[in-house]
Structure formats: C-alpha cells, structure tokens
C-alpha cells in the first residue's frame, strides 16, 4: 500500500472513531503510537510522563475525532499537534522540573537520517527540508530544537548561549523566510 493510501486509511479510521468505533481507535493507535510516543519522550525527557500524556492524547482523539477535518489537515499533522500541545503544556506546568533533554540541541539537525515516513507527505516534507536548508545553520537548528524539544525562547537562548533577544530575532527571521519559501 502506498503512502497516500495509508494516509487515506488513517483519515477514514479517525472518521470511524468519531462515530464511536473503538476498534478504529485501536487501528489509529497501532499505526501512530510509536511515532507519537517518540515525540512525547523527546519533549518530556521522561518515559513515564510520556506514557501518561500518550494516554491523554488517544483519549482526546476518542473525544475530539469529530473535530478532525480531513480536507483541512492531514491525519498525522492533527495527531502530532495534539501530542505536542499536550506535552508542551505538561512541560510548562512542571516549571520546577527543568531536566536537560536527552540529547543536545545540535544533534537534532539530522533530517537525512530519518527513515521514510509514510505518515507525512513526502512532497511537503521535501519542501520543508528545502526551505530549512535555505536558512542559516543557526536558524534552522533553532527551529528544529524549538519544534522537537518544545523549549521556550528563554531555554533556547540559554542553551545556545545567546541573549534572549538574539534568539527571538533568529527564530522570527527564520519564520519570515520559511513562510515566504513554503508559500512560494
């Protein structure tokens, strides 16, 4: 089955979840939980917290599946957004807990190494990589670290050893360039 067909199947499963089909939720879970769990571990740096949030994520999918609009978003985008938002909220609420992420930010910048990921559109990812490559190295590294680790401007600045204003400026300039490139 090609990637497009699998994406359609995932979208159809989410539609069935909206109708209260538990077997469909299991299909969605089996197809996507490893990816989402990886994302959650990365943001939370803690497997057991990631497990808690993973449960939240699929219960949210169960409750909000009717809000998923296949015409508007790809299913994986929708799921990743739910997972990241939950994880980032959890991270912010445990402000006292400021564990260092498992890896340093620099190591994230390794897009080529990722296996072919059917869950996301090859074409769109290709476009994104192209646009990220047009940024200066410190800018694309900051964008990746922010997205993958869910870090605040403050933490990103501290990690990179630059003033807060500089980090904001790096990222905002990168966002302006990315927007222009992605809509080109």
């Amino acid at each position, binding site marked *: 089955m090609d990637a497009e067909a699998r994406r359609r199947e995932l979208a159809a499963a989410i539609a069935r979840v909206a109708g209260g089909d*538990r077997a469909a*939720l299991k299909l969605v*879970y089996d197809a996507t*939980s*490893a*990816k989402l*769990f*990886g*994302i959650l*571990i*990365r*943001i939370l740096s803690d497997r057991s917290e990631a*497990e808690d949030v993973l*449960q939240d994520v699929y*219960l949210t999918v*169960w409750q909000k599946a009717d809000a998923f609009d296949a015409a*508007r*978003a*790809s299913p*994986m*985008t*929708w799921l*990743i*957004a739910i997972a*990241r938002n939950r994880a*980032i909220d959890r991270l*912010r*609420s445990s*402000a006292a807990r400021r564990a260092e992420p498992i890896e340093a930010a620099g190591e*994230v*910048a*390794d*897009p080529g190494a*990722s296996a072919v990921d059917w869950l*996301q559109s090859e074409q*769109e*990812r290709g476009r*994104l990589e192209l646009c990220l490559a047009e940024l200066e190295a410190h800018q694309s590294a900051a*964008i*990746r670290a*922010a*997205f*993958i*680790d*869910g*870090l*605040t*401007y403050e933490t*990103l600045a501290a990690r990179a050893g630059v003033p807060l*204003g500089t980090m*904001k*400026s790096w*990222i*905002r*300039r990168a*966002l*302006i360039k*990315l*927007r222009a490139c*992605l809509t080109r």
Partner: protein
Amino acid sequence: MSDDPTIERDEDFAAAEYVLGVLSAKDRRAAEQRLARDPAFANEVAFWEERLAGVAAGVTPAPAPERAWTRIEAALARGAQRQASRGVWDSLAFWRGFALAASALAAACLAGLIYVGSAVSPSPLLARLDAEGGKAGFVAAVNTGDGSLTVVPAALLAPAAQQAFELWLIPPGDKPHSLGLIDPARPVTIRVPKDLLKQVAREAVLAVSVEPPGGSPTGAPTGPVIANGKLASL
C-alpha cells in the same frame, strides 16, 4: 529587541510561535483563546501545523509499552460506563442546582423522585447532612422498599489527597455503622446491608467522616465528621 525592521509586533508571530512551541504557558493560553474566536489566526495556526509537522520526521519513533493501550482501554470502559448510567440521577449539576436552592425542597424532590421511581415503596426517608456553618453538605434519601440509599453532594467538599469520605449510620443510642465510602463529586447509591436496614429509620443520624483511602481501618470513624443530619420521613 531587534534591529530588523520587519520584526515588529509580537502578535504577528503568535500563531507560528504557538505551533513552534516557544511560548510560555501564559502566552499559550492567550493564543488558544484567540484560536477559538479568530478564524484568521486559526488559519495561520493550521498553516504552520501542516508545514512544520515534517520537522517531527527527525524524531525516532519509540514503541509504547503494551500497558499503555491497556490503560487507554480501561479509561474508555470507565467513560462508557459513566455515559451509560448518566441520567438525571447522575447529573451533579441538577442535584447541586436544586439542593443549593433550597435544601428542604431538594430533599422533598429527591424523596419524591424515589417515591415516583418505585411506586411500591413505603414512605421514603431523607436527611439533609449539614456541614460546618449549617450549609447542606449532602442530601440523602432512602428507598426503604429496596434498601437503597442515595447520597448527593450539595456543596463543593473535596477530601485532601490520601483521604476519603465515609458514610455512617448512627441509630439512636447506638454506635456508628459504616455504610461505605461516598464520592464528593457525584451522587452515589448505596445498598444498605440487610442487618442494618431496620435501623435506617426516623431519628437515625447519617454522618460523613474523613478517613484514610479505603475507609476507616478500625470500623469506627477515625477522622473528623464533616457533615451530619437526621433521617426524617417525607
């Protein structure tokens, strides 16, 4: 903050920054509120979510342990059970609404409902369990026909962590007998044990005490009594 003239106002970046994940908890809440009422902002968030999701491709997947799905299934089962039993009896808002409005009337309604609900029931009993300050803490009604006792929270009482609320029956001149744990957040119906049923009568007192999780270890109340009231017939 910046020497770049194109970087002007914070809000121009709020959607992208929300998706990127660099905002503080406070700014995230503000973004979410805007998301709910500003379609242009919502479109902008959707744009970035779709375009940036590819960054996550660089994250190594990690198989979740099997218990993760088991926990999800269990939570779904609990949810389904709640859904199935959700009627006016389980609607806390309903109970709280009328219980707070007028507790005497509330108790009468509760008893009336029980009476209507079981036409063969002999006279139902009810009690308003007052908390400190004379405010209703719980309203209880007994269907003496089938020995069921419904306890409805009438105020926002919450046990501290590691504590539970236990309901006691205290017949006149007798010691307290446990009727089990009750839930401060929703109505609970208890089946009164057969040997106690006769003592669930007018003038008997119902009381709620604070106990360790799982209930009193001694069989008698060990913590403070937070609400109590006498049973009366309708």
